[in-house]
Each structure stands twice: as C-alpha cells, then as structure tokens.
C-alpha cells in the first residue's frame, strides 16, 4: 500500500489537525487570567478554554480538508479555478468536493446519521416516561437527552431537505451544471458535520439543561456542556445562512435560457422561500449565541436581570430566529409535496401561482408572529391580539398549499407509489398540525396548551409529520435518480404504513395528554396520565422500529441487492428524470433550453406514455 496517499488534504489529515487544534485551543484558553475567571477557577469550569478548543479544532479540521488552501493560493497570486476533486470514485464522498451531486449525497448520509442519533434520544425519552415517577436516567441526564434530541433535530433538519435534495437537484432543475458558490456549498456540509460532533461532546462536559431553546438565564447558570450547544447552533446558523445565500445566488444567476421565474419547478420556489428565511434569520441566531457566549465568558450581562440585562431579550431574539426557523423546516416539505403530486396524479400542478404566493406569503408572515411563543410570559401583553391575528393569518397561505394539493389530485390518475403515500400522509399530518396550531394561536386557549405536551405534539405533527414525511417522500422519489438503484417498494410500503400508524398513534394521544395537563421536559408526571404515556411510549417504540425497517431496506437496496432503475422509473416529465441515473458529473452535455411549464401532463401530445418533456424541445430563446 502506498502510504504517501494518506498525506495531503483528506479526512485523516482533517481529523488529526482537528484534534490537535482542539487541544491547542484548550491550552490557549487556560492562559487567560483575570478576576472574573478566577471567580470560577475552583469549579473546573473554564468556558473560554472550551470555546477556543472548539474554534481552533474547527479551523484545524477544515484546513485539513483543504478549505484554507484555495484562499491562500489566491492571496499568493495563483489564478482562480472553479472545481476541486470532481472526479469519479468513492473517495470524493469523503473529502472536500465541489460537485453539487456529491455534496447532496454527503448531506443525505451525514444528516441521516445525525437524525438517527436524535431519534435514539427520543426513544430514551419515551423509555423514561414509561413510569410517572421512577427514574431510569437521573435528572441531569434526562434533561441532556431532551436537549440533545431537540437541538440535534432542530439543527440538522434545517438542512434536511435543502442539504441533500436542493443541492443535488436545484441546479439540474434550472438547467445549471453547478451551484453559484461550489466551495461554499461544500463548506456548509462540513460545518454541519463538525457542529454535530461538537454537540455530542456535550455529554463529556456535563450536558446542558436548557432544551433546544436555551433560555437565559438558565443558559448562564449551566455547566460547560452549554458551550457545546452554543457552538453547535452557531455553526448550524452559519451553515444555514451560507446555504441560503448560495441557493438564492444560484437561482438568480444560473438559470438556463428560457427558465423564466414562472417556469421554475415548485420545489425551486419552496427553496427560494426557505433560503430567504435562512439567510435573514440565521444571523440573528448567531449573534444571539455570541451574546450568550460573552455572558458566560467575559461576564457581560446581556440576559442577566441582576446585571441590568433582560431574559426577555433572549426570548425575543431567539424567537425572531426561531419562528422563521420552523418555517425553514416546513416550507421545503410543501415543495416536495407539490413536486411529487403532479407526477403520480398525472396532472399539472393546480394553481401554480397560488402555490408560489402561499410559499412567499408564509415566508413573509413568519417574521411577524414570534411573540406567540411568549403569550403568557408577560411581555407586551397589549400586543397579544396582534400576534394572535398574525399567527392565524399564516393559515391563509398554508391553506393555499392545501387547496393546490387537493386541486392537483382532482380527476388525476393517482398511482400509490411509496413517495406518493408519504406525500398524501403529509397532507393528513399537516392538517392535524395546522388545526392544533389554531388552539396555540388563540390566546385564551393557549393559556392551558402553552408549554404543555400539546404544543410539543403540535410541532411534531408539523415537523415530523410534515418535514420528515416529505423527507422520506423525497428519498423514495429521488434516491433512485441519485444512485441509479431502486429502493425496494414492498419494504418501502411496510415502512410507510408502520411509520404512518405509529406516528399518529404516538402524537395523536400526546395532543390529548398535553391538554390534560402534562408539561414539557418534565421527568415526572401526574399518575392519571400514566396509561396514556405508556400507550404513547409503546407507539413510539414502533415508530422507532419503522425507522429500522427503512434503514435496513435502504442499505439492502442500495448496497447489497442493487436493482438498476432506468432513467425515468416514475415516468416523470421533469428535467432531472430525462438525464441518466445517476446523473453524470457534468449534468448536461448541452445546457438545455426551457420552453414551457414544468408539469406538461396531459398536454395534448398523446395521453399515452409521453414521458418526454416539452421543455427541451422548444427553440432556444436568444438571451438579451
């Protein structure tokens, strides 16, 4: 074996430099001294050291992958170049690669692994809640598990659909060969992976007690494990805003001839609506967390009431990010839904403009609702009617998405493939999620449901029932295109039905349990809720089991029992399905020219198996 191949920019170098950097930062942090640091000297809690360790470790890891070399070469006067390691071979998946399709695959596997970890935490939570009082985990471990579950899911799933599927398919859908900023694209992925590992190291520093919201002043009081949360979320925010920036730049600048705004596939519109939120909301998160970090290290008092700060400030800032964040999670799912329905209903998308309006409307309104998270907090009590109205107004654009989905099914010829089942389940789950949201938006009703399992079940209906179901729809729909191999349909259906039933059997009763008085994140609960909780826990274990069905099926179909699919197994008319599976490195031999609607189903060119899209047949329009 040629050991010299191990030298150079690769994952091994990255790990080595990352670990070395971590300890360099740790050592550096211990060189600081001062009265406010000495104050905590005897507690063994050196937050500065841990922050520096994470930071220098991150820089080391990214440099080891080769992210530093291009900027340095440019500074030294080398000519600009575009691509890095865009070759065939498995090795490209484990390093810095600027091929958007490789980054998409990296995201799919990387994020999938972290979601699996987050899901395991959910299983532990439900295991603990099997008994009202008996403790399986101690109080600190339980809170850490709750926090890890929430933070991992909320952080990783922000890019859950944009990461794998928008990176892979958005350039193809608009007729481009790459993203606008390919190196930034690769950077967003590796930032997220480092962030995920950093969050998991919290276990070694005592965990964190705050849940995913990280409220002040509890976050100031917490152990060093809190720093892992802060660095994790800040890196996720950085990755998110760069991802959003890249998506917007790509759609604005890299559309092929003829790809007018009115011809963008609806998934691209959902990516735009999401990206705007990512680009604008994530910086708020990053700066808020920086303030928390300063509170914890430099003893500033932004969020400390005794030092002249305000815990309300944190809540306000967090939810100014946090409410757009939940639509960052929800919007891509709507795009997937409306992208998949036309293919399997054999109909054009019904109400394209209404759907676009709906997505952009949600994007806009999501900025105006954040204080509904603070309805009983006592802040701005006289503004509650306004936030009640603005929150309820969001159901209008969401209603547009529903009516477009229902209209697309009208007189269709529906085929119940696995992705279609997941898309239809999205409609059902999101309906429940939306309806339960009405209770939370109504101030008098919110008094009881606020901070209870009702609100927890509500957002699981929208995020798990919406986002995760559409994530699976996208996997069953698009992974055959990405790998060239089918996913077994029989096991796909088993996965769907177990997941759909177990999901509703878990979170439906949780809506009731919450309304009956169960608070969130509490390790104990009242005895009369025991039966309901036992039911929910058992359902949750089935839900976890359904994920194992998926993982088994996915690995088996993609690695061991590979069945090649043709270019177009779903007979879709979208452009990505006219390319070979998997898509070749440079996507198109010639840049296509678009001449029509992206959903030309039933458009008079013979209702038979007219799978050829009319998009590439139209004459090229001269660019001005």
């Amino acid at each position, binding site marked *: 074996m040629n050991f010299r191949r191990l030298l150079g920019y690769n994952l091994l170098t990255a790990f080595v430099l990352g670990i070395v950097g971590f300890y360099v930062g740790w050592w550096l942090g211990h060189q600081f001294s001062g009265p406010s640091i000495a104050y905590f000297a005897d507690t063994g809690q050196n937050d500065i050291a841990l922050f520096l360790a994470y930071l220098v470790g991150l820089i080391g890891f990214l440099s080891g992958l080769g992210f530093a070399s291009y900027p340095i070469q440019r500074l030294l006067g080398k000519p600009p170049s575009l691509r890095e390691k865009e070759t065939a071979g498995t090795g490209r998946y484990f390093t810095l690669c600027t091929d958007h399709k490789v980054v998409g695959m990296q995201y799919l596997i990387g994020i999938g692994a972290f979601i699996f970890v987050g899901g395991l935490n959910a299983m532990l939570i439900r295991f603990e809640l099997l008994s009202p009082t008996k403790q399986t985990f101690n109080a600190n471990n339980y809170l850490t598990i709750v926090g890890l579950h929430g933070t991992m899911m909320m952080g990783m799933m922000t890019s859950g659909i944009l990461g794998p599927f928008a990176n892979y398919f958005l350039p193809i859908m608009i007729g481009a060969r790459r993203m606008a900023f390919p190196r930034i694209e690769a950077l967003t992925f590796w930032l997220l992976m480092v962030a995920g590992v950093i969050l998991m190291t919290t276990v070694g520093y005592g965990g964190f007690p705050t849940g995913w919201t990280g409220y002040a002043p509890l976050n100031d009081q917490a152990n060093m494990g809190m720093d892992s949360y802060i660095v994790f979320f800040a890196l996720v925010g950085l990755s998110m805003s760069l991802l959003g920036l890249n998506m917007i730049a790509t759609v604005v600048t890299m559309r092929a001839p003829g790809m007018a705004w009115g011809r963008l596939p609806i998934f691209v519109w959902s990516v735009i609506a999401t990206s705007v939120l990512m680009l604008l909301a994530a910086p708020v998160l990053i700066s808020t967390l920086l303030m928390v970090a300063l509170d914890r290290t430099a003893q500033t008092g932004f969020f400390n009431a005794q030092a002249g700060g305000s815990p309300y400030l944190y809540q306000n800032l967090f939810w100014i990010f946090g409410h757009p964040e939940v639509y960052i999670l929800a919007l891509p799912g709507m795009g997937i839904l409306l992208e998949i329905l036309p293919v399997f209903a054999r109909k054009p998308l*019904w109400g394209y403009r209404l759907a676009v309006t709906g997505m952009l409307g949600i994007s806009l309104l999501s900025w105006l609702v954040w204080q509904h998270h603070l309805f009983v907090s006592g802040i701005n009590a006289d503004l509650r009617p306004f936030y009640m109205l603005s929150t309820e107004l969001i159901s209008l654009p969401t*209603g547009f998405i529903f009516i477009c989905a229902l209209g697309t099914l009208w007189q269709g010829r*529906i085929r119940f493939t696995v992705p279609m089942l997941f898309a239809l389940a999205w409609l059902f789950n999101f309906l429940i999620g939306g309806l339960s949201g009405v209770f939370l938006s109504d101030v008098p009703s919110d008094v009881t449901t606020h901070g209870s399992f009702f609100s927890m079940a509500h957002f699981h209906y929208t995020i798990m029932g919406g986002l995760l179901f559409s994530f699976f729809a996208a996997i069953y729909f698009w992974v055959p295109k990405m790998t060239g191999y089918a996913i077994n349909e029989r096991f796909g259906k088993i996965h769907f039905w177990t997941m759909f039933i177990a999901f509703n059997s878990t979170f439906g009763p949780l809506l009731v349990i919450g309304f009956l008085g169960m608070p969130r994140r509490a390790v104990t609960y009242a005895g009369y809720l025991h039966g309901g909780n036992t039911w929910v826990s058992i359902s949750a274990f089935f839900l976890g089991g359904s994920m194992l069905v998926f993982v088994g099926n996915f690995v088996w179909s993609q690695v061991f029992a590979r069945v090649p699919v043709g270019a177009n197994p779903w007979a879709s008319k979208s452009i990505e399905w006219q390319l070979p599976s998997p898509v070749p490195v440079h996507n198109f031999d010639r840049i296509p020219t678009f001449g029509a609607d992206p959903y030309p189903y039933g458009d008079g060119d013979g209702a038979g198996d007219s799978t050829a899209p009319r998009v590439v047949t139209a004459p090229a329009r001269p660019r001005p």
Partner: protein
Amino acid sequence: MRLQGHAGRIAALTVVGTAIVLPLVIFVLGPNMPPGHRTTGASSQVNDNTVLLVVMTPFTVFILAYLAYAIFAFRAAAGEELRDGPPIRGHMPSQIAWLVVTSAAVLFLAIFGTAELFASNGAGGGEGPKPIAKPSGPVLPVQVIGQQWEFTFRYPTYGGVETAELVLPVNRQIEFHVTSLDVIHSFWAYELGVKADANPGVDNVAYVKATKTGDFQIRCAELCGLWHGYMFDTGHVVDAAQFDTWIAGERKQFTPVEKYLPRYSVTYSPDPQVRAG
C-alpha cells in the same frame, strides 16, 4: 356530467359529515374540553376551545372527505396503462372562494379570540405588570415566587406572610403576581386555567376567580434546570371561613421568622447568581 358528479358527491360528503360531527363537537366534546369549569378563566377557555372546534370542523371534514374521495375515485386501476389526467392548471372561482372562506374564518377567530380575552380578564394567562384585560372591583392579591425548584406564595393583604402552600378562597377575584428569584419558571395551576411565566425582575399579573372548591395541581411549565420535573405541588380552593382560619394559622406560625423576610415587593433582587451544580 362527470365533473358535476365528483363535486356534488364531495359537497354531499362534506355536508353530511359536518352535520354528523358538529352536534357531537357542540354537545359532547365541547363541554368536556379541558381545563374544565372550576374557575371563570377555565370556563372561558373551554368556551373558546369549543368555538375553535366548531369553526374547524367544516374545513377538516371537507379536506378529509375530499382526500378520501380522491383516493377512491381518482386512483388509477391496477395494471392500467400509464395515462395522463386532464391538464387543469387552476380554477379561479374555487381559488377565490377558498381565499374568501378561509379569510373569513381567520378574521372571525382573531376577533372572537380578542373579545374573549378581554371578556375573561385575560383567561388566566400572564399579562405582565400592566394588565390590559382586568376585572373591576376588589381583588385578593397573591404573589407566586418561582425559585429553583419550588413555588412559594405571599399574601400582601395578610401582612405579606410567605407560605409554602397555595390556598385560595372560593368566589373571590384573585390577582396573581408571578415573579422569580433566579431563572424563568412558569406557574401553571392546571384546574384553575392559570399559566404565567415567572421571570426574574418582572411582575407578571394573572386573574382568576374560582367558582368551585377543591384541590388543583401546580406545575412548573418552563424548563428551569435540574429538578424542573419535581417542581409540582397541590393547591386548594376552600370556602371563605376555611381560608380565614388557614391564613390566620399561617400568620401565627410564621410570625417568629417574619422579620427575616424581605419586605413585600412585586419583584426581588437576590444576590448575583452563582452556578448551581
């Protein structure tokens, strides 16, 4: 005509479904909605929940009926040759109708919710230091102090005595003043329909009037650190005579330690926080 047939059947399903579900919602589910009828605030929440359910019912029935009908009627037959449906790209009248109907429902809900909020003196929710929805007439102020990890209570009209137990007289307007000594807690008296965040340095006011005697649960509803899950208690609503006896007893019991208490205040400023373990 075929199209008329589909639309007609979906409309019929919606009307029939609504006609069946709506009475159940109004007469069976509604009156039994949480959090019950033990206080004025809780009753108005039940009232509110019922109205929300009534407004939602036709929409829910329509969407579910449509979905069920579409799955049944618009499915491709097994083994059928791949064929496209008709290229319908929208239908302006139904889009406008949908927009009008949903807008009307949303505006109604927002106006109704606001009216209910004021009519019920805030429905038991925390309203901050200057509540805008408040009762007229005399109130009994009761302070709730959240701290890691318990609630204590002070009765300013009874010499500011601090008790570990919450006892309230029935049929008297209570004015809770919720505050915290350390991190954010949330005072949740479930059966009373009261929830108000306890913020350090903030006086969060909530109103409630118990109409029935009995015990109620108190829980912390905002994650407040290590023993958050153990921050619960049982409170009691008792009649006026029992309350007077109880508060007199508490004052007598705690007189010796009263001088160590800080003077009653709507907020407290303890020493700078140190980290808990």
